[in-house]
């Protein structure tokens, strides 16, 4: 983290968390350890950890960031599939998804081979998943099972991986500063969540979709979204945007974050659960915090790329070393042939 502006951002978040920790402690001293306050303390403590790990990944550079998101995708998909009832017939399909499709996707993203990053999941993985499940021979609710796995991979892996891809956006005059853009997206989306929750608790009257998510209110969205947009606008100096563009992009993040949370909440409830897991004390699962970023990431990535006219596809074609490796393997005919028994054995 050589960029001083990035340090200011981290410092700002630390200051906000300090205030939150102190206020929580004072409240607990005054009112005792009520369940609500104990949960609040857990949540604030978890925010410290999340913020620490997120910043550490940025400090480690490209490898750290991509490693971190690979792990997040893995944990998110783990929660998603755990809650989705997948029968025996999907076991092998899922083995391939977890141990091959996911890591290879992040390898293409990190390399970066932009064309392959775009199509690896929507084309190759989505063709492979139904084939492998059909080979397993179980036709019971086949379409439903296949769609479930595909949706899980799409959201938890494909959508999420657009966040670290922000590091590669070639924005004129912003070279080497893209880590701040990633920080900006995560910060505004998460603050929007917090603000919507707080304002919803304070002024919330009209629930938007009570069956899907009881805590999402129209007032919360309006006031909380406005507050998050203001914060995002105030941070325009860390972004490549003008203040007005920063305001528009923040509003976009608020909207995408809101709908991401809403849709993932509907998915979660259709699977009969209230939380995605219990990995983060006080919050629920990893997906309970990532849900708002799932839609915000890819939409922000593509609109920003379009706005600045970046040419990702031509800038990041297949890296030479990948091409070299593939050629080396293809030239050795036993290498190609030897793969088939291996694949058959792994199944």
């Amino acid at each position: 983290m050589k960029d001083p502006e990035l340090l200011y951002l981290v410092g700002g978040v630390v200051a906000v968390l300090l205030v939150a920790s102190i206020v929580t402690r004072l409240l607990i001293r005054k009112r005792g350890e009520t369940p609500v306050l104990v949960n609040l303390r857990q949540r604030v403590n978890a925010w410290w950890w999340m913020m620490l790990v997120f910043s550490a990944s940025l400090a480690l550079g490209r490898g750290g960031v991509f490693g971190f998101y690979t792990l997040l995708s893995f944990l998110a998909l783990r929660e998603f599939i755990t809650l989705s009832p997948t029968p025996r017939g999907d076991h092998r399909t899922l083995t391939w998804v977890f141990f091959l499709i996911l890591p290879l996707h992040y390898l293409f993203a990190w390399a970066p081979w932009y064309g392959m990053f775009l199509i690896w999941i929507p084309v190759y993985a989505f063709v492979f998943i139904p084939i492998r499940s059909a080979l397993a021979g179980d036709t019971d609710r086949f379409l439903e099972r296949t769609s479930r796995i595909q949706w899980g991979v799409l959201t938890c892996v494909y959508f999420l991986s657009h966040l670290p891809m922000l590091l590669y956006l070639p924005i004129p005059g912003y070279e080497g500063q893209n880590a701040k853009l990633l920080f900006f997206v995560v910060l505004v989306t998460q603050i929007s969540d917090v603000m919507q929750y707080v304002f919803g608790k304070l002024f919330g009257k009209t629930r938007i979709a009570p069956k899907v998510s009881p805590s999402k209110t129209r007032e919360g969205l309006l006031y909380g979204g406005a507050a998050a947009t203001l914060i995002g606008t105030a941070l325009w100096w860390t972004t490549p945007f003008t203040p007005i563009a920063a305001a528009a992009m923040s509003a976009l993040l608020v909207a995408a974050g809101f709908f991401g949370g809403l849709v993932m909440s509907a998915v979660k409830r259709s699977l009969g659960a209230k939380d995605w897991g219990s990995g983060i004390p006080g919050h629920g699962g990893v997906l309970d915090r990532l849900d708002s970023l799932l839609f915000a990431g890819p939409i922000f990535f593509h609109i920003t790329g379009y706005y600045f006219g970046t040419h990702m596809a031509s800038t990041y074609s297949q890296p030479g070393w990948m091409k070299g490796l593939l050629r080396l393997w293809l030239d050795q005919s036993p290498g190609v042939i030897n793969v088939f028994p291996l694949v058959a054995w792994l199944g």
Partner: protein
Amino acid sequence: MTSTILAFLVRLATGVRLLRDLPEDGKRRVYFANHSSHLDSLVIWAALPGRQRAWTRPVAAAEYWEKGALRRWLSGRIFKAVLIPRDPARMRHEDPLGRMLNALDSGADLILFPEGARSETDEIGPFKPGLHHLVSQRPDLVLIPVFLENLNRILPKGELFPLPLMGQAVFGPPLPGPFEGETRAAFLERARDSVLAVSRGNLSPLPDEGP
């Protein structure tokens, strides 16, 4: 040391939580659970607090665990499994019940799967009489029902690679021993019900949703 690391890795891979509050009252325990995966005894063993784990021994099929150096090392050194033959001929002269009682008398707790073999479906099969034999021979045993959730999805029967899904080991309240005049079949049915009871609505209490 190896055991502690292995138990940690098992909990990390399966999402099973470490149990913190097990009273140490000097009584011998038998943990009994539904059986659907090779991971089952491993997971119960890994969920126990370190001290208790040291004297808890899974009861397992001799035919499976005597094969190969790795399995022998795991069952002999790490889990100190009480190996019971499945083959009726071997069973006759090796006295499986005696082995379990010996283990209990030497101060070990046992992990037992009363269904006998891994179930292919999600159903819990009928219990075999071993549990009843044990508790009639040693009436002050504490019988603890355990429900294992999702492990049949992580590593189903016949699969080689485990999936990285989350499972759960839910420990229930101790099951009272056979009542006056209770038949063996009735007791075994009650034991099976106690495992089912732990399975119902026992997902951990959930917090209010919010960021």
